[in-house]
């Protein structure tokens, strides 16, 4: 890498005069040594003499074209490495040579060849999108593409691609600085408090692009040097999250004059201090904590015994990490980034930069710091967005090998034998995600009887009933996925679409940009591991409901069929035999209550997104708050916790701060029964006057009438909110004849 700050750009023949002048290097003038080498290119290639020493960015395009013509006329094939060097150098290869390039080089080749018109920009949008989504990344190619986008003046694309490759090619942070800064200003802010046990300054800088790549504008405030523990015990109040950078020196530094067991005991004591601070954190802090595990050490202190003996560094690391993991298991506020996973792409010996440790107590190398920043940002994104809800799956060549309609049932590959075992492994992964709470949807261009493959083919892992919804016909998939979204009452942004066909993927991206459509590997053998790495599927915290979500949806759909068969709505509701168990939120149910506050968009009166910290604080009666949840069962099954409300109590007045319900049970008068129960509970606490607000959003129109239909009186109304009042004792609290209310403990 000798030309980090040279930005190769496509040149035209008429620019030869000015060649190289802009970057301070002399142009490679024709007729001299380089020219002679290029002229001899065919012979060089035939004899295996490499032309890598030439900086192609500084060779005029006319010269390159002459060389390519020369190679063609002498029947010398253009080798892949030279094609790559030319394209990275800003040159445009003709179609026949370009056809053999990798996807990202083809994209760069197209960028090199375009002049920057608005038409080209539109046409290249899908090329650009694919470039951003590629799994295998060649940092030099992407950096060259970023530079090319810069030259074309396409700042949005420049920033977007820059954020894809900034960690592999950090030079884009300076070359694309203006575009990146403009882009970051459009993103929502995340206030990050950063603390650690070593210097955090370089991580603070890297959190900027890392968070921007996940769609957030990081505003980082650093704690004092080495203040990690202090920050846990007395968290700053004005942050959205605390990032705690762990490192080996802060915990496992040893004085080898001590006896082995004594030394390990000191490590344990430090780890205990950390564990105590982590345990105290959720009570003191209002925001989540992101903490990394300590990665594997570059060198052992007990050789082969490192993981088992008291002298072993790895043993010490394991002890500290164990404490961190235990703390995370106990609290929904503590989220762990696995450093070994985060740093997997950085060779162990390059994860630290010892001179920087001795010079400035930097615990990690530049590359490792970028990788950790990325992993913290991914954790934050998962925390804010949660995993996607629906896995929409193609059938042919995605869930099984072969095409059902053409090849027939017997020919489909899926089962215990090669190559069908790759497909059955993939189906197992789909089943795993279903167990983590994702709904499976089938989206296949086939005759409807293709669903029977899951029952008739002996090798299938998935069963027809594992799919919560299917669209199997010959209609375009973007329209079908919209239909499934309506059927499941979910937005398109909840969908992850997997299809082996690049055309289907591209069509989906164009027609339904809200759907997440990753580039799936063409090789089925790679897909089972690939899908595990898809961050859009990563669960943040698993609640009991997650594993049962698909069953609950199915019960609800069965109930809907009953609805169609029942003579009247009243018959239907009566036949459901619904039970609502109302209870105060307890520590075990805080995660589910918080999850509902994050997820619910439609049946949500105020759309205030209370998190685990805020809900946890309400458990204390002295807080003057009340948080209730309700579980619903009916003759079709257990729906779990589907409704929640919180209220703030001040003397004899109370305000219903949040009131929300899962769409699974809409239209069954559950909300009426729950609202009545809430009013009864408020009365028990001495409340006389209750106020509720409706804050309209684009999605929550259906709850506009909740308070008036229950008998609340309107107090005020403007565009932003309508306020409704209820006076206890004036009328009976609302009830539903179709819901039996019980009080849980």
């Amino acid at each position, binding site marked *: *890498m*000798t*030309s*980090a*700050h*040279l930005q190769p750009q496509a040149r035209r023949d008429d620019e030869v005069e000015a060649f190289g002048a802009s*970057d*301070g*290097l*002399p142009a490679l003038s024709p007729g001299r040594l380089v020219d002679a080498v290029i002229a001899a290119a065919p012979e060089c290639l035939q004899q295996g003499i490499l032309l890598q020493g030439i900086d192609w960015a500084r060779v005029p395009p006319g010269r390159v074209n002459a060389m390519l013509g020369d190679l063609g006329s002498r029947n010398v094939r253009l080798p892949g490495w030279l094609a790559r060097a030319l394209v990275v150098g800003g040159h445009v290869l003709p179609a026949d040579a370009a056809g053999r390039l990798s996807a990202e080089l083809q994209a760069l080749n197209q960028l090199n060849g375009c002049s920057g018109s608005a038409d080209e920009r539109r046409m290249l949008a899908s090329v650009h999108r694919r470039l951003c989504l590629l799994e295998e990344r060649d940092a030099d190619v992407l950096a060259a593409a970023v530079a090319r986008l810069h030259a074309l003046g396409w700042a949005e694309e420049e920033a977007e691609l820059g954020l894809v490759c900034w960690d592999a090619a*950090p*030079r884009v942070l*300076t070359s694309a600085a203006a575009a990146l800064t403009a882009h970051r200003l459009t993103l929502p802010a995340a206030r990050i408090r950063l603390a650690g046990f070593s210097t955090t*300054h*370089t991580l603070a800088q890297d959190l900027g692009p890392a968070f921007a790549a996940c769609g957030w504008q990081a505003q980082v405030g650093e704690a004092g040097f080495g203040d990690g523990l202090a920050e846990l015990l007395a968290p700053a109040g004005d942050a959205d999250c605390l990032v705690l950078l762990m490192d080996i020196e802060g915990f496992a530094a040893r004085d080898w004059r001590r006896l082995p067991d004594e030394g390990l005991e000191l490590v344990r004591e430090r780890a205990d201090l950390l564990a105590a601070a982590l345990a105290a954190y959720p009570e003191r802090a209002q925001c989540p904590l992101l903490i990394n595990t300590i990665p594997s050490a570059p060198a052992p202190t007990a050789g082969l015994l490192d993981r088992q003996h008291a002298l072993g560094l790895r043993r010490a690391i394991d002890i500290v990490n164990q404490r961190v993991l235990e703390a995370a298991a106990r609290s929904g506020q503590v989220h762990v980034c696995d450093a070994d996973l985060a740093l997997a792409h950085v060779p162990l010996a390059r994860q630290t930069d*010892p*001179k*920087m440790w*001795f*010079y*400035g107590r*930097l615990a990690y190398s*530049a590359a490792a710091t970028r990788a950790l920043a990325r992993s913290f940002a991914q954790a934050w994104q998962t925390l804010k967005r949660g995993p996607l809800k629906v896995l929409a799956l193609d059938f042919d060549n995605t869930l099984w090998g072969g095409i059902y309609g053409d090849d027939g049932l017997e020919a489909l590959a899926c089962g215990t034998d090669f190559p069908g075992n790759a497909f059955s492994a993939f189906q197992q992964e789909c089943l795993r995600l279903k167990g983590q709470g994702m709904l499976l949807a089938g989206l296949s261009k086939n005759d409807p009887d293709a669903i029977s493959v899951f029952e008739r083919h002996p090798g299938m892992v998935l069963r027809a009933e594992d799919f919560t919804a299917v669209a199997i016909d010959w209609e375009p998939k973007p329209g079908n996925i919209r239909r499934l979204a309506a059927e499941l009452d979910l937005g398109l942004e909840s969908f992850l679409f997997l299809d082996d066909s690049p055309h289907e993927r591209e069509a989906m991206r164009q027609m339904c940009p809200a759907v997440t459509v990753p580039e799936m590997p063409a090789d089925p053998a790679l897909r089972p591991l690939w899908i595990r790495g898809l961050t859009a599927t990563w669960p943040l915290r698993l609640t009991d409901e997650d594993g049962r979500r698909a069953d609950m949806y199915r019960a609800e759909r069965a109930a809907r069929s009953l609805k169609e068969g029942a003579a009247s709505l009243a018959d239907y509701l009566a036949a459901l035999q619904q039970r609502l168990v109302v209870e105060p939120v307890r520590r075990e149910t805080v995660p589910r209550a918080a999850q509902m506050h994050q997820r619910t968009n439609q049946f949500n009166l105020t759309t205030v997104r209370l998190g685990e910290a805020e809900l946890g604080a309400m458990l204390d009666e002295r807080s003057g708050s009340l948080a209730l949840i309700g579980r619903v069962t009916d003759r079709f099954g257990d729906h779990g916790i589907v409704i929640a409300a919180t209220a703030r109590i001040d003397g004899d007045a109370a305000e219903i701060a949040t009131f929300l319900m899962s769409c699974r049970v809409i239209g069954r008068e559950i909300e009426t029964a729950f609202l009545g129960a809430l009013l009864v509970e408020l009365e028990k606490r001495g409340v006389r006057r209750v106020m509720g607000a409706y804050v309209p959003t684009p999605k929550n129109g259906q709850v506009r009438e909740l308070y008036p239909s229950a008998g609340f009186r309107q107090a005020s109304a403007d565009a932003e909110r309508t306020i409704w009042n209820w006076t206890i004792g004036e009328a009976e609290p609302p009830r539903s004849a179709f819901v039996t209310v019980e009080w849980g403990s």
Partner: protein
Amino acid sequence: MEAPAHANGIEYPQLAAIFEDVFQHTGALTRSTSADDVARWDSLQHIALVRSLEEAFGIQLSMDEMMEIRSVGDIENVLRRHGA
């Protein structure tokens, strides 16, 4: 190979871009430009400078070299030693 002739006798013109990135220094650069002449060249930004040099030239500097670098001339000596 002949050494390219340059203004101010700088052998590695890429240094101008690095000094601009790291120190926002856009003034003239000569071999004698030192930490005394560049406002932001403090011990913290020294880390950023060393990392930039390592990444731009694909080299790893030693602790001694980190201490040795006090001026543009020092940087050029180090780069030359690494064959950059």
